[in-house]
């Protein structure tokens, strides 16, 4: 039973077949070479870019393919760090007195690159706090005219909280800050139209949406891509090169140095098609139903605390992602994960690359169950059974439950 899709998803044969078909019939280095195979490979790569763009409502030339989502955020942060020395980009430059604003619920990938940008430029990092209930505390700070970047996660990879994008975009707009959205847990699970969200940059990863590892996507508004200096440099991203210096290709090529990951792009496009065929609204509805089953099931077990929104009405689930992080009272998350694994249930345990969030909530580690389109009610029921088995093994079945089931609540199975 695989309930760790928030970490990485399983890939349908459709995706594997698309990669294999490309590799066995059209493989060549793209954007170089005049032979027919190179043309086929280039077509496959660019048509994959167009499919991926369509999936999120974007124009193909606004889609930059990266190694993963983490690289996408680093690309923006690094590029902004070089803006001060780039003609035409000085307006994007940061320096002492400027601010980058993030939130306390960020994945490390949307935190550490900004910490590093601040360290390099002398800018100050500030953040929105998180409430005890796992929502953003929008009153915790105010953006100011010094705020140059607001970077935040769309759907929390731990709590499942969906952040209020329109509200945050409006706040950023009113002070002229760039908005960077981490869409890693939203694009794979619900219909998302990136340009319509009003953000300037968004990143997501291929492997969390039934696609391959080794490919991520950075979308940004065309004018921003035009203005930003390149990140990695070398082949493919140039216009002319002399010994003295070089000029750069237009976006998105400007940000894709070296021979890119072609079969992964083809695989990700196949994943987009696969999900579109099902319909993202259907995918979201399926996951909401399973999330509701997890939340009500855990509540019925007792002795389990969920970090993040716990409401399980249809309306509440519609505004929540499909990851459920929880702790079992009296048992460390690592030990819970071990017993679950023994029962054949794969979940993630630890801080899920969101250490500050766990610290904020007073949790050292949590158990995280996460679903995708292929997850079933049987998977969820196996999880719930295994959590109860964990409580029994460690002798922490809640007394209320123990009294009604006749268990002595302390013996367990040892």
């Amino acid at each position, binding site marked *: 039973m695989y309930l760790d899709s928030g970490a990485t998803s399983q890939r349908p044969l459709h995706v594997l077949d698309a990669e294999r078909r490309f590799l066995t019939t059209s493989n060549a280095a793209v954007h170089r070479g005049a032979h027919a195979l190179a043309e086929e490979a280039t077509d496959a790569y660019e048509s994959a870019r167009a499919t991926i763009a369509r999936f999120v409502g974007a124009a193909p030339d606004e889609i930059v393919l990266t190694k993963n989502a983490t690289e996408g955020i680093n690309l923006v942060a690094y590029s902004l760090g070089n803006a001060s020395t780039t003609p035409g980009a000085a307006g994007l430059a940061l320096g002492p007195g400027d601010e980058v604003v993030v939130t306390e619920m960020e994945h490390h990938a949307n935190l550490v690159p900004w910490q590093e940008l601040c360290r390099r430029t002398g800018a100050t990092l500030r953040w929105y706090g998180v409430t005890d209930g796992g929502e953003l505390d929008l009153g915790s700070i105010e953006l100011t005219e010094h705020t140059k970047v607001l970077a935040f996660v769309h759907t929390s990879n731990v709590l499942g909280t969906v952040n209020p994008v329109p509200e945050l975009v409006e706040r950023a707009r009113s002070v002229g800050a760039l908005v960077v959205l981490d869409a890693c847990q939203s694009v794979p699970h619900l219909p998302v139209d990136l340009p319509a969200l009003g953000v300037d940059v968004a990143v997501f990863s291929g492997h969390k949406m039934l696609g391959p590892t080794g490919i991520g996507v950075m979308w940004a508004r065309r004018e921003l891509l035009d203005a930003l200096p390149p990140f990695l440099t070398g082949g493919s991203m140039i216009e002319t090169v002399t010994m003295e210096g070089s000029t750069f290709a237009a976006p998105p090529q400007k940000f894709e140095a070296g021979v890119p990951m072609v079969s992964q792009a083809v695989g990700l496009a196949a994943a987009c098609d696969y999900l579109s065929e099902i319909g993202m609204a259907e995918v979201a509805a399926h996951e909401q139903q399973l999330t509701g089953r997890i939340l009500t099931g855990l509540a019925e077990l007792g002795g389990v605390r969920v970090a993040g929104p716990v409401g399980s009405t249809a309306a509440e689930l519609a505004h929540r992602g499909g990851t459920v992080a929880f702790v079992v009272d009296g048992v460390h998350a690592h030990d819970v994960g071990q017993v679950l694994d023994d029962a054949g249930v794969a979940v993630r345990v630890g801080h899920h690359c969101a250490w500050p969030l766990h610290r904020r909530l007073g949790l050292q*580690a949590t158990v995280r169950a996460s679903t995708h389109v292929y997850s079933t009610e049987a998977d969820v029921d196996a999880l719930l059974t295994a959590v109860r088995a964990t409580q029994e093994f460690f002798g922490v079945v809640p007394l209320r439950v123990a009294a009604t089931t006749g268990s002595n609540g302390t013996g367990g199975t040892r």
Partner: protein
Amino acid sequence: MDLQELYRETILDHSRRPRYAGLRAPFHAEVHQVNPICGDEVTLRLRLGEGEGGERTLQDVSYEAVGCSISQASASVMVDALTGRSARDAADAYQAFHEIVTSAARGETTMDPMERLHEDLAEALGDAPAFAGVARYPARVKCALLGWTALRQALVQTA
């Protein structure tokens, strides 16, 4: 493998009632170790003393461990066994414990590492073999070694 093989009663007992837990002063070295994968943390303080013939001894080892039952229990077993012993005993015990929690993962059949220890130390470290089940779970090896790594680092710092 049966879960009971991993979570021996000895381990569960130490994790519920860790021996010599808490941070005490004075100390000669303080070390902080984390497992970045899961966030387990241990802070360990070492106060040295002088034994027979001027040998360095572990006069007091105090610690604060936050983490899973395996990491808590292994720190407890370690401190329980090594407090008052020589730095050389601590090094030998580390070797033996390391081998216990990693040997099955390497797929090697070795001589029982406890047999290489002198009898007195082996007896003090009597709870260590309970951790043999850890070797089947590579992800848990780091948990089991967290406190031990901290002590080794503290000994290096004070050498």
